[in-house]
């Protein structure tokens, strides 16, 4: 017991803090672990996967899971396990740039609209109305179907469709902050507008959007898989989970369940991970929720 206590005491502060966070919000910890594990899978895919992502053995199609093919093999004789691992690269490869795009477009727009108001604000609100009143999956589908099927297009569409959400949340934060003393002081000190926006307002306004980033990344992973499943977006034999589920769908009623099941589980895992992460972040960042001891 004493030995443990000593190591505890000498451990750097950040360690005990992390431990505290895990205890305070198990949701966050679980989400973080899931997302982290998949990120590791994505990075180390070539080392972990026993087969290549599109390495086909035409004489070994639709083998059920066994020692050689952990998750079985698909209709082309490709190893489902290896493809699921490589699929993580696509999940992050789409979600991360899409999230960056959302922020790059949405945040400046929201800052400006909230601070300056006027026409920009009006336009933002109207765009918000349209996007909000309309199911984004259909817009995404239609746009991707019309503009062509590439990873870049998928990222662009997801980033664009989601940017108003960030614009709106940043806008409302800025509205609340606009007349606070520190902003007025910055104005009085003669700061140019861009400096007030990005140096003074941004750090304060971005806080409300933090938890949202994880949630919207979950959405990005989901919707890119949906696009691939429907057949627009990323095409087989690219090891994208949605595309793999599409390939596996036809075998479901003949009993070869593994082709669709495993990529689906991975998809659920990553999306759930991001959602838990977002939920946990909200827990941790919301001071109101932090108080009550239970």
């Amino acid at each position, binding site marked *: 017991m004493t030995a443990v206590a000593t190591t505890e005491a000498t451990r750097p502060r950040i360690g005990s803090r992390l431990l505290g966070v895990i205890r305070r919000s198990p949701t966050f910890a679980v989400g973080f672990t899931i997302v982290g594990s998949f990120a590791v899978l994505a990075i180390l895919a070539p080392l972990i996967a026993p087969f290549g992502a599109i390495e086909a053995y035409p004489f070994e199609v639709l083998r059920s899971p066994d020692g050689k093919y952990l998750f079985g093999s698909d209709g082309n004789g490709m190893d489902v396990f290896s493809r699921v691992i490589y699929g993580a690269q696509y999940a992050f490869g789409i979600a991360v740039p899409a999230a960056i795009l959302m922020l790059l477009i949405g945040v400046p727009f929201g800052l400006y609209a909230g601070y300056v108001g006027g026409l920009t604000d009006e336009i933002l609100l109207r765009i918000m109305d*349209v996007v909000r009143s309309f199911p984004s999956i259909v817009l995404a589908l*239609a746009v991707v179907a019309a*503009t062509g099927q590439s990873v870049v297009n998928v990222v662009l569409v997801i980033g664009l469709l989601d940017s108003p959400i960030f614009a709106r949340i940043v806008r409302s934060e800025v509205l609340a902050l606009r007349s606070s003393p520190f902003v007025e002081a910055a104005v009085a000190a003669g700061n140019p507008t861009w400096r007030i926006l990005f140096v003074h307002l941004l750090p304060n306004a971005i806080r409300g959007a933090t938890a949202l980033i994880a949630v919207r990344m979950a959405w990005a992973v989901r919707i890119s898989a949906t696009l691939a499943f*429907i057949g*627009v977006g990323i095409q087989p034999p690219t090891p994208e989970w949605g595309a793999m589920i599409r390939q596996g769908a036809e075998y479901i*009623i003949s009993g070869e369940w593994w082709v*669709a*099941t495993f990529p689906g589980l991975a998809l659920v895992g990553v999306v759930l991970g991001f959602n838990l992460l977002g939920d946990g972040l909200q827990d941790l960042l919301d001071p109101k929720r932090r108080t009550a001891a239970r």
Partner: protein
Amino acid sequence: MTLRQFLLRRVLLVIPILFGITFITFMLVRVGDRDPVAMLAGPLADRQTLATLRTEMGLDRSFWEQFAIYVGKLIQLDFGKSWESNNPVIVDIANRLPASLELLLIAMLIGAAVGIPVGLRSAQRPNGAFDQAARFVSLLGFSVPTYWFALMGIFIFFFKLGWAPPPMGRIGLDAIPPPDVTGSYFIDSLLVADWSAVHSSGTRLVLPVLIFSVIVAAPIIKHTRAIALEVLSSDYIRYARASGLSPFTVRRIALRNAFTPVLTFVASELTGLLAAVSLLEFIFAWGGMGQWGLNAILNSDFAAVQGYVLTLALFSAVIYVMVDIAVLMLEPRSALKA
């Protein structure tokens, strides 16, 4: 302001939104790299035929002229013709919408009937065991892709257990579809007391409806919980407790105050779900508007895509106006002074 003025105002507010959607859909089919004329005429058409077709379709005019013509036709409810089915788009939609609504509305009823009580219960003891479990289930529902969930359901309940009928359409080949009244095979066959059709269409509803209810319930749980938490921490609930009203009365006040926001939320979810249901239709070969719309998108059936998107937009506009009317009647605060 009278009720009529209020409604008029509300409807007028919807117009810019519809206009925006119209413009986007109009743009969509024109920014693509596929030439509709070439697609329609086929690979063997000569230049002369293409030119004639182009003029016939009005595609040789300027962008804005085309848009004006398009909007003009929409106002007369002329959505154009589907190249796939060769029917007027509006006829195709009218034929297929009931099948989608059947799935959607039943699943919505079940999802709300489960999700709202669960959300309320969760809020009573935030971070308690029930709340933790409910939140996890809700997040899981958020995270499971509809189509994959449906595939798993089919594998287990059709292939393994044999409880569900084959996932191919709304009614079996052994039963005759009932005469069309509401458009729901199940209700229509009930109306004419055709029991084999009732059985056939009823059993085929069960699996997709149950799967969809889970998807529907997830956000309802989350938002009901959030709304209830806000109400429970309000001044008027605190004051009600300070007034010594019985816990039962206090709970009733809370429920009554949470009702409108929950209703508004549930209704506002409908449009998104009408779009999401298309994936389910796709897998169960349901033949509803969603499946039709997906196919239209996949096949670049431009008029049909536009029709589908506009129908969704219109649907959402109608829901919004209906929600406003409901709020108007339920909430004294909003009484005609918005």
